[in-house]
C-alpha cells in the first residue's frame, strides 16, 4: 500500500512536471468553454446539419371565420366584417406551419387535446407542445379589428432535454406575436433568421436574444408563455459547452495512463521497479489512481472556473461530485486498460489511436461538439456508449434540477464501464509475463 502511494505520488509529480500536457488537460478546455460558450466560434459550429423534428399543436378554440368570431361576440356596429377575407386560423396552419421554411425546422401535427399532446411529449414523439387557448381566435380578431385589446396566451411546453429545439419553437411562435401585431408577412422575421443562419448553434443563441428584443420592442398583447415540461431550468450554450468540454477532456486524462506506462517501459523504470520487487499490479493500479487524481484536479479547476468566471450554475454540488466520481472512475478504468494494452504492444499506437481517433469520435458521439439532439436520432442512442456522453447527460440533468434518482441509470452505466475496462486491463496484465516486458536495447555505445 505504501509502495502504491509512492508510485502514485511519483506519477502525479511527473504529470505535473509536463507543462504542455497540463495545458492540454486544463487550459485548453477552459479556453474552449469560454469561446464556444460565448458563441464566438463560428467555424466550429456553423453549417451543422439539422435534423427536422416534430412538435404538437393543440387548438383549444373552435375554428370560426372572422365573421362568425365577431358575430359571436356581437360586436358594436361600424366594422364591416364582410370585407374581411382574412382567416387567422388558415394563416397559422396552412401558410405558416406548412411553409417550406418552417418545415425545414419542424413538422407540426395536431393533437385533439392537451393531454394527448403531453403524452406524446413525454414519450418523446414530439419535442414541444404549442397550445392555442380557447379564446385565441376570438381575442385575436378583437385585437386586430377593434380598438379593444385582449390578452392572448399561447402556451408552449417544451422538453427540457431538447434545449435547442425548444428554443427554436419558442422563437418561431413568438414570431406570431410580431405577425399578429404588425401584419407583416407570414414568414416571420424569426423564421427568416433561423433559416438564414444555416442553423449554426450561435444563431440559435441569437434567436433567443432576438426574441427578448422583440418582447421589449412591441408591447405585446399576445403573451406567449413558455414553460417546460416539469418546469425545469433551460440550459444555455455557455452551460452546455462547459459540460461538453469537461466531459470530453477527461477522456484525454484517461489517455495519459497509457502514455505514462509506455514511458516507464521506454525509460527502463518499469524494469527497475520490477527488480525492486514492485508487482505489475501496483504499477497498473498506480496508473489508475493517478488518472483518477489528475481527473479530480482537472474537473475541480474546470468547475471552479466555469462557476466563478463564466457564472455557470452546475446545480446540486453533491450530485456534481457523485457524477464526477462515476465519470472519472470510468475514465481511469479506460486509462488502466489503455496502459495494459500499451504495455503489451510496446508502442504508442493504441494510446495515439485513442487520442487522435477514438476520443474524437467519442467526443462527437457523446455530444461534446454538437448537442446530440441536433443529430439524427440514432446518435442519441449511441451516446449512451460513450463515457463523455453519459457524463454530459448526467451533468445536464443535474443542472436542470433533476434529482439524482432520475439519472442513476447513467451513473450505473458509467460504473459498469469502469468494471468492464478494469477487467479487460487485468486480463491483459495477467497474460503479461513480467520478464517479457523487459525489452533489451543495445546501448548507444561510445
Amino acid at each position: 500500500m505504501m509502495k502504491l502511494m509512492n508510485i502514485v505520488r511519483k506519477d502525479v509529480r511527473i504529470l505535473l512536471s509536463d507543462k504542455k500536457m497540463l495545458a492540454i488537460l486544463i487550459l485548453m478546455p477552459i479556453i474552449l468553454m469560454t469561446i464556444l460558450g460565448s458563441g464566438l466560434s463560428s467555424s466550429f459550429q456553423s453549417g451543422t446539419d439539422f435534423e427536422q423534428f416534430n412538435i404538437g399543436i393543440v387548438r383549444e378554440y373552435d375554428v370560426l371565420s372572422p365573421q362568425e368570431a365577431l358575430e359571436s361576440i356581437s360586436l358594436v356596429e361600424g366594422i364591416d366584417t364582410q370585407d374581411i377575407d382574412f382567416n387567422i386560423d388558415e394563416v397559422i396552419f396552412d401558410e405558416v406551419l406548412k411553409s417550406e421554411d418552417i418545415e425545414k425546422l419542424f413538422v407540426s401535427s395536431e393533437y385533439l387535446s392537451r393531454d394527448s399532446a403531453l403524452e406524446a411529449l413525454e414519450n418523446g414523439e414530439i419535442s414541444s407542445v404549442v397550445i392555442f387557448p380557447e379564446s385565441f381566435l376570438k381575442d385575436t380578431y378583437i385585437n386586430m379589428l377593434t380598438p379593444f385589446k385582449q390578452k392572448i396566451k399561447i402556451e408552449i411546453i417544451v422538453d427540457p432535454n431538447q434545449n435547442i429545439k425548444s428554443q427554436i419553437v419558442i422563437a418561431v411562435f413568438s414570431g406570431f406575436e410580431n405577425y399578429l401585431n404588425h401584419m407583416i408577412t407570414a414568414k416571420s422575421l424569426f423564421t427568416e433568421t433561423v433559416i438564414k443562419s444555416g442553423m449554426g448553434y450561435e444563431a440559435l443563441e441569437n434567436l433567443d436574444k432576438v426574441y427578448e428584443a422583440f418582447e421589449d420592442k412591441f408591447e405585446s398583447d399576445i403573451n406567449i408563455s413558455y414553460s417546460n415540461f416539469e418546469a425545469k431550468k433551460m440550459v444555455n450554450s455557455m452551460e452546455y459547452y462547459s459540460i461538453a468540454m469537461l466531459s470530453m477532456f477527461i477522456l484525454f486524462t484517461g489517455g495519459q495512463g497509457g502514455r505514462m506506462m509506455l514511458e516507464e517501459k521506454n525509460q527502463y523504470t518499469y524494469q527497475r521497479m520490477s527488480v525492486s520487487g514492485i508487482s505489475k499490479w501496483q504499477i497498473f493500479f498506480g496508473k489508475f489512481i493517478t488518472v483518477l487524481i489528475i481527473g479530480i484536479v482537472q474537473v475541480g479547476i474546470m468547475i471552479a472556473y466555469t462557476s466563478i468566471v463564466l457564472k455557470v450554475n452546475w446545480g446540486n454540488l453533491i450530485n456534481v461530485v457523485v457524477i464526477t466520481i462515476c465519470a472519472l472512475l470510468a475514465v481511469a478504468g479506460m486509462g488502466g486498460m489503455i496502459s495494459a494494452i500499451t504495455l503489451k504492444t510496446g508502442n504508442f499506437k493504441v494510446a495515439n489511436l485513442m487520442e487522435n481517433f477514438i476520443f474524437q469520435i467519442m467526443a462527437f458521439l457523446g455530444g461534446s461538439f454538437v448537442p446530440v439532439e441536433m443529430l439524427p436520432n440514432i446518435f442519441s442512442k449511441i451516446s449512451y456508449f460513450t463515457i463523455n456522453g453519459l457524463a454530459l447527460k448526467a451533468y445536464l440533468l443535474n443542472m436542470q434540477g433533476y434529482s439524482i434518482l432520475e439519472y442513476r441509470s447513467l451513473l450505473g452505466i458509467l460504473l459498469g464501464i469502469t468494471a468492464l475496462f478494469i477487467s479487460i486491463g487485468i486480463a491483459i496484465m495477467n497474460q503479461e509475463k513480467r520478464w517479457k516486458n523487459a525489452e533489451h536495447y543495445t546501448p548507444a555505445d561510445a
Partner: protein
Amino acid sequence: MTNLLKIRNLRKSYGNINAVDGIDFDVREGEIFGLLGPNGAGKSTVISMISTLFKPDSGDVLYNDKSIVENNRFIQSDLGIVPQDIALYPTLSGLQNLKFWGRNYGLKGRELDEKILGVSKIIGIEERLKDRVDKYSGGMKRRLNIGVALLHDPKILIMDEPTVGIDPQSRNHILETVKDLNKKGMTIIYTSHYMEEVEFLCDRVSIMDDGKIIATGTVDELIEIVGSTFNVVLEFNIVEEELVQMLKGLENVQSITIDGDSLILNVKENGILKAVVDKLNGSKYHVVSMDVEKPNLETVFLYLTGKALRD
C-alpha cells in the same frame, strides 16, 4: 570465502539467438566479480536473470543456496542493480528520483533523508540534487543511476557497463566508488567490455563470448593461459588476404587478427619482425610501424576466440 551466488547451466534465447548458452560461475562474498565480453556476448542477459527481471529458459541461480528462479523475493531486497540503460525519471529532480526509489525499498522519513545525503556524497551530485534529471550531463545521469542502486545498502551490487559513454573524469570517479564500496564489504558484479576497467577492479573475471563463458579466474590466472605469448601490432602499407596468408606460415605465429591497416600477430617469441621482413622481401607489402603489447586480458580474449575484444 563462501559462494554467495551460484549460476548453474543458465540458458536464455531470443527466437533463435542463444543469448546465454548454458553458463556456470560462482560469485564469492566480498569480491568484485567481472564479466568481460564484447558487445552482444550476453552479459546483460545474464545480469537480467540474476536480477530477476527475466526468467531463464533453463538452469538456475542460487542465492545463499536458494533458487531465485523459484522465488525471486530471496534476492530482491539484497540486490542493488545499476542497469546498463539509465533508468530514471527525466522530468523529476535528482532528489525526487532518489526519494521515489528509496521509498520503493521501504525507506522513509529521516532514515531516507540520511541515506540520500550519504549516497549523493558518494556519487558527487549534492549540488545538483534539486535540478531535473534531464538537465544533467551524461556522466551525472550515470552517477545518479548508480546512486539509486545504493540507497538500501544492498549486499550485492550488480553494475552493467556503468561507464559507457562518459568522460574519463566521471569514469575514474565511478571506478574509485566501486573500489570503495567493495572495501566496505559490498559484493560487486561488474560487467564491461573495457578490459582495463576489469583488470583494475576485479578480483576474478569470467570472459564471455557468444553466450558462453570461455574462461574464468583471476586476472593473473587468465593471463597465464596465454603463457609467454604477446601481441605484435604491425602496420602495413596495405592489408590484403594474400598478406595474411603469407604471414600465417611463419613459425611462432599463433594467430593473426586484422585490425584496419594493421595486423595483430599473437606470437610466442620475439624476433618476429626480422622473420616478417624476410618473408615480405620482394613483395609489394612493407611494414610501416610496429608495436609490441604485453599480454593482458585483450590478448587472452584474442588468443581464445581469435577476435579482438573491442571492434
